[in-house]
């Protein structure tokens, strides 16, 4: 990384120059620097709406970058150690989908763990690729899915040697890392592309003492949520490529679904955040790591909660742990994660990232302060004092591996009918259902619905998880394949 070049922020600088020119707008957006929408200016501020401008020669165009966006992408690639970087404005969802669409055509196989974000399986609905799921092990005590073991991957590769790509989510939402380097070598032995959903791993590129990032591990593409640990605006993201992947073809794929009116608020936030990370990332994440480690030890000292960390590393299913994550298991105090999540928000005015059946995740970042960490820890202690239950929750696991019967695309576009969830056991699901967050599908199109899965869904619902993905917004009915009920 060339530090002196990294001090530049080409998109930001172009916007500054553009502002000074006081150009009269006879183009979109129609609010014309906010003048046509005073209430919006009141809410967002003049500076912000003034930067909401259209693509034009001095500001470049995201669909066909030749000047300042091109430069910003080059600087980003340099900062992340990639050959090429794409600035993305449709969230990491669009980055994940572009990776898959770049590698897989209809009917081709892709190897991935089932506990991926829904965006990955959505991509399979779009392109018609066939998923081959490699099963992650589950942590027996805390019930979460772990990383992918090299052995399991090798077996799957042997059985499906013609698959086009392998996709791994690393780190997972909970902070679990696989042996990315080994998995990448294996994929390459079979001439498959290695794609990494690094939505929760921007900081791995800049922090010290953290698990290896995808580019350094030799992966071919990676999707990076800059808006998570990178500090940019929500919805802004990055797609990285390496190892001679044809970036111009990838751009065509990105442009299939990406907006032609990319927001300069998002683009400039990516530009500025990349500069921040390159110049100050290491010290920022040092601070984040210290705060997370402090919180972990204080929470474990309360008793009843288990804030896990590097002790989970076993060299097979857990090959690294991202210590910036503050994930904890709550069931020992008799409460599900989602109950603790709701209590923190409703009773203590503390919003955390998510709660599921067994765990909660508090997102620690460069914006946190020690006094807020103290609040979180005391609130957890207070919840234990006031709400602890003798009886343990009836369901402990947060991951059930489903059986795939037909491909996601076939299932999604098949004739289907809507049935009450309880009556769906034995049928094949034709849509997604997931708790959001974390957004990992409980069922994806084409999977067999079992009694265990239905119990899990009903329990999650009863405990207050937000169930999403179904056509029925209340998630009381499920779409299943018509005429294929056993």
């Amino acid at each position, binding site marked *: 990384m060339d530090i002196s070049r990294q001090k530049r922020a080409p998109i930001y600088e172009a916007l500054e120059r553009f502002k000074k020119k006081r150009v009269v707008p006879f183009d979109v957006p129609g609010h014309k620097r906010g003048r046509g929408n005073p209430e919006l200016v009141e809410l967002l501020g003049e500076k912000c709406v003034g930067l909401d401008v259209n693509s034009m020669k001095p500001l470049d165009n995201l669909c066909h970058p030749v000047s300042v966006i091109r430069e910003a992408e080059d600087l980003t690639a340099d900062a992340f150690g990639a050959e090429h970087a794409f600035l993305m404005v449709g969230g990491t969802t669009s980055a994940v989908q572009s990776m898959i669409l770049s590698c897989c055509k209809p009917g081709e196989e892709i190897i991935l763990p089932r506990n991926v974000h829904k965006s990955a399986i959505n991509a399979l609905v779009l392109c018609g690729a066939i998923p081959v799921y490699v099963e992650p092990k589950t942590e027996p005590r805390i019930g979460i899915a772990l990383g992918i073991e090299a052995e399991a991957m090798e077996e799957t590769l042997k059985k499906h040697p013609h698959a086009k790509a392998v996709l791994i989510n690393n780190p997972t939402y909970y902070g679990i890392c696989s042996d990315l380097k080994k998995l990448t070598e294996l994929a390459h032995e079979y001439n498959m592309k290695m794609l990494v959903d690094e939505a929760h791993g921007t900081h791995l590129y800049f922090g010290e003492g953290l698990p290896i990032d995808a580019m350094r591990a030799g992966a071919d593409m990676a999707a990076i949520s800059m808006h998570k640990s990178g500090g940019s605006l929500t919805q802004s993201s990055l797609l990285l490529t390496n190892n001679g992947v044809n970036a111009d073809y990838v751009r065509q794929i990105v442009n299939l679904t990406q907006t032609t009116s990319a927001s300069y608020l998002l683009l400039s936030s990516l530009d500025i955040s990349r500069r921040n990370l390159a110049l100050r990332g290491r010290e920022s994440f040092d601070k984040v790591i210290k705060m997370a480690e402090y919180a972990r030890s204080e929470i474990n000292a309360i008793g009843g909660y288990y804030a896990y960390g590097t002790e989970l590393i076993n060299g097979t299913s857990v090959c690294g742990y991202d210590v910036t994550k503050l994930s904890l298991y709550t069931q020992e105090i008799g409460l599900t994660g989602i109950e603790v999540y709701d209590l923190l928000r409703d009773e203590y005015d503390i919003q955390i990232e998510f709660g599921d059946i067994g765990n909660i995740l508090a997102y620690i970042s460069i914006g946190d302060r020690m006094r807020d960490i*103290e609040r979180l820890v*005391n609130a957890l202690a207070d919840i234990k*004092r006031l709400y602890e239950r003798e009886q343990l929750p009836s369901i402990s696991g947060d991951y059930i591996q489903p059986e795939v019967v037909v491909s996601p695309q076939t299932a999604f576009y098949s004739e289907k009918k809507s049935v009450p969830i309880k009556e769906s056991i034995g049928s094949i699901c034709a849509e997604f259902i997931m708790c959001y967050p974390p957004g990992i599908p409980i069922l994806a199109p084409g999977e067999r619905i079992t009694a265990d899965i239905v119990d899990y869904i009903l329990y999650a619902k009863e405990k207050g998880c937000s169930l999403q993905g179904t056509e029925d917004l209340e998630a009381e009915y499920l779409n299943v394949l018509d005429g294929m009920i056993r």
Partner: protein
Amino acid sequence: MELWFSECHTNNVKLSIRTNKELYSAQSDYQRFDVMDTPEFGKVLISDGEIVFSEADEFIYDEMVTHVPMAVHPNVKKVLIFGGGDGGVATCFSKYPEIECIDLVEPDEMMVEVCKEYFPEQTAGLSDPRVHIYYMEGLHFLRNVQNEYDIIVNDSTDPFGHEEGLFTKEFYGSCYKALKDDGIMVYQHGSPFFDEDEEACRSMHRKVVKSFPVSRVYQAHIATCPAGYWLFGFASKKYHPLDDLDAKRWKDRHIETWYYTVNLHRGAFMLPKYVEDLLEEEEDK
């Protein structure tokens, strides 16, 4: 030369105090301190542009958070004070010989230094051997404390400053846990008059009512506060601030005061109708 210090009490209301000169200004890890010398209020301590106290009216806060619980609780041995880095409250408690231990938790060491330098009378009590100062976050101090104190005072006044953690449900819950079975918590309850302060005042009451079986509010007139009007909270596990007031016992001590009397104690809990209404609304929630 005209030199005035102004503090905005709302966007539309300002309190301005003529100032002789600025005596001190410094930035700590937590806040910016300024000390002004003024003809009307004497020396004034300012944190991030807002008055913390002045020599002229500081005694009102200190007496009201000390003597009110002391005239109710029959047997106080251990007291804990948060945000009392100016020493005023500790000094007031140190007038009671039966108290064995006064712990003071203040995250900002500079607060104590500045007050020792510019408000030596107020900090006199800090050198009492019963007073122990802990420089740390209040929530951190409380985390492992259980069934220890007879009285806890939250002397911090600003729910939106660096001590906002002392106005949260987890703080009140942690105080409940740290108090003995007949313990009392007294806290700054803000000013209810201006619309923009009202919500903070409501939210404090809402949280405390849920945390303690007895929760009453009392008032005082303090010139440098918004609208010159200030509330305090009295939360307790057992004692009622009026039913359990032992006026005779307190009077027999012959402690010298300038604001507090046991008559005023009774009157302070008689609140204006609009304040009663807003508190009751929160109790019903």
